């Protein structure tokens, strides 16, 4: 009896979770000319390529896709490097008052973005960084550093200090110790931090719509929003195809590096 209820419950949940995904795929495949104003529950054709092409070129997802790929990859890498160096300073090296510096950096993930937006907008307008790729990349790095720092710091505290001490006695410099000992030993942790920050930057909407405007600067989620606002004119198949395209990179990363993702989640909860 209990077992039956449990199985039914799990099956029901799985079904509920699959239906939206199923509808997403089915309707993204429907040829946009044959869409009749209501959702299709069965496959009507296989026109994904055309729908994607429409979303990609006419709705400007393509430009934003490339821009976001640049933002996510570069900012993810820079943030992880910057965060790893800071974690090295706080955990391994004798920086005075490490707790103060920890909370200074960590506060960046704590507060809602709304707390930073208005002054950032003013700052960017003054510095001519508004609506530039450089401006967005700078703020993405700053936004990604705190959580990457948190993940990397947690992992770095598990490394035995004897390693560093031995290397110091052998006459290695801090730089050498960092690059030759900590970076190689923490490959998995750094990878997890990069995946997280890549995903975070890729999925960002709020910073994108606040600090940029033009099509070749806006990140991809902002472009998707613009496309969605033209719901009736461009038609659901094209919009859903756009949603599918912008989800592909993170979905792919998640499926390929599932272990690393889960490891990052576990580390973030300890």
């Amino acid at each position, binding site marked *: 009896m209990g077992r039956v209820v449990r199985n039914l*419950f799990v099956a029901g949940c799985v079904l509920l979770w699959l239906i939206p995904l199923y509808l997403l795929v089915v309707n993204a495949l429907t040829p946009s000319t044959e869409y009749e104003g209501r959702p299709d529950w069965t496959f009507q054709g296989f026109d994904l390529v055309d729908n994607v092409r429409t979303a990609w070129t006419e709705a400007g997802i393509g430009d934003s896709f490339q821009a976001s790929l640049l933002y996510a990859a570069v900012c993810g890498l820079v943030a992880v490097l910057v965060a790893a160096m800071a974690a090295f300073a706080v955990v391994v090296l004798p920086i*005075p008052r490490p707790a103060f510096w920890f909370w200074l950096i960590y506060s960046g993930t704590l507060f809602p973005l709304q707390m*930073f937006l208005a002054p950032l*907008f003013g700052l960017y307008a003054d510095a001519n960084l508004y609506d530039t790729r450089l401006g967005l990349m700078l703020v993405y790095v700053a936004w990604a*550093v705190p959580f990457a720092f948190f993940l990397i710091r947690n992992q770095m505290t598990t490394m035995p200090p004897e390693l560093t001490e031995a290397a*110091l006695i052998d006459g290695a410099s801090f730089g050498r110790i960092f690059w030759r000992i900590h970076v190689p030993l923490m490959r998995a942790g750094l990878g997890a931090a990069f995946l997280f920050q890549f995903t975070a930057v890729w999925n960002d909407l709020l910073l994108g719509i606040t600090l940029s405007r033009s099509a070749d600067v806006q990140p991809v989620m902002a472009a998707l929003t613009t496309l969605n606002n033209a719901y009736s004119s461009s038609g659901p198949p094209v919009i859903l195809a756009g949603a599918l395209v912008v989800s592909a990179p993170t979905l792919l990363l*998640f499926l390929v590096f599932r272990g690393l993702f889960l490891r990052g989640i576990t580390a973030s909860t300890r």
Partner: protein
Amino acid sequence: MRAHMRARMRAHMTEIATPAPASAPAEAKPRRVRRRVPHRTPHQAVRPSARLGGPLAALPWALPAFAFVGVLLVYPFFRSVYGSFFEDDGFTSRFTGIDNYTRLADDPVFGRSLLNTLMWVAGTLLLPVLLGLLIAVATHRMRFGGIAQMVIVLPFAISAAATAVLWNFMLTSDGAVNQFLRGVGLDSWAQTWLLEWPQNTLALIVAGTWQATGINVVLFAIGLRVIPRDTVEAAELDGASGWRMFRYITLPQLRAVTVVVVGMAVVNSLKAFDLIWILTKGGPSRSSETLALTMYREAFRLFHVGYGSAIALVLSVIVVASSWAYLRRQMPDTGWARG
């Protein structure tokens, strides 16, 4: 038992860094001599007076992070606090003291927004967290349970924006949900989900649940896996099963994970922006706004920058207050935190 579990959860973090004195009594003595310097924690390899550089040697390593975070996050934070005492339309600003805050009290939009925010928090505890717990327990040690968890965690890899676009397709008046309800003869259940309060906020919470439950399932599943077998077996010997097992063994053992899940879920629900912005833009007539939306609309659509900053500060206080238990857990090694 709780301590036992925590110790197991953290075992991988601490076993290398600080070997238990009991297991290595021979080493305890020389270690103590080396660690006399108060500034040095077990993790720090180099003493302040070490041969390379002195206390400032670490600074260049931390400088890039401090520069990024300081200029682009910490400075704007304090500038926001400062700006919340001004009436500012983006061009001219005038000091008005705590006017922005007193205005909040009798602004009906803010009241509705606060109510919606509370609905989001309550809904998040009720749906993604409770459902996540139930699914994790139900799929634990179940055949194909891993696959079921995988399906439910899949939307986690999709952005909130894409989720919103998909759910717009589901929830719009001639969308898939209404079509389904009419198809099975529940015509009276079909409604304009996104156009009336309160069902627009409730519909948004359901859409959020679809995306956010998976991660909680994963976290609870991790918690379930580290429950010691002996405890479960001992309870079984004592005749516990079903509900009693869940209530008196599983649930107490999950307490540590629950703090994390609740903390993360509540913070995320307070920060939720993308989903609501794309699905309803906070409307119609601002009825589905939460504080995150209200701040954005006031500051960037209506150019009430100071008023927006005041709302942002209220939201920040709520975020920090509601995640306090979770934050304290983030820093369990308090010796280090005291610096």
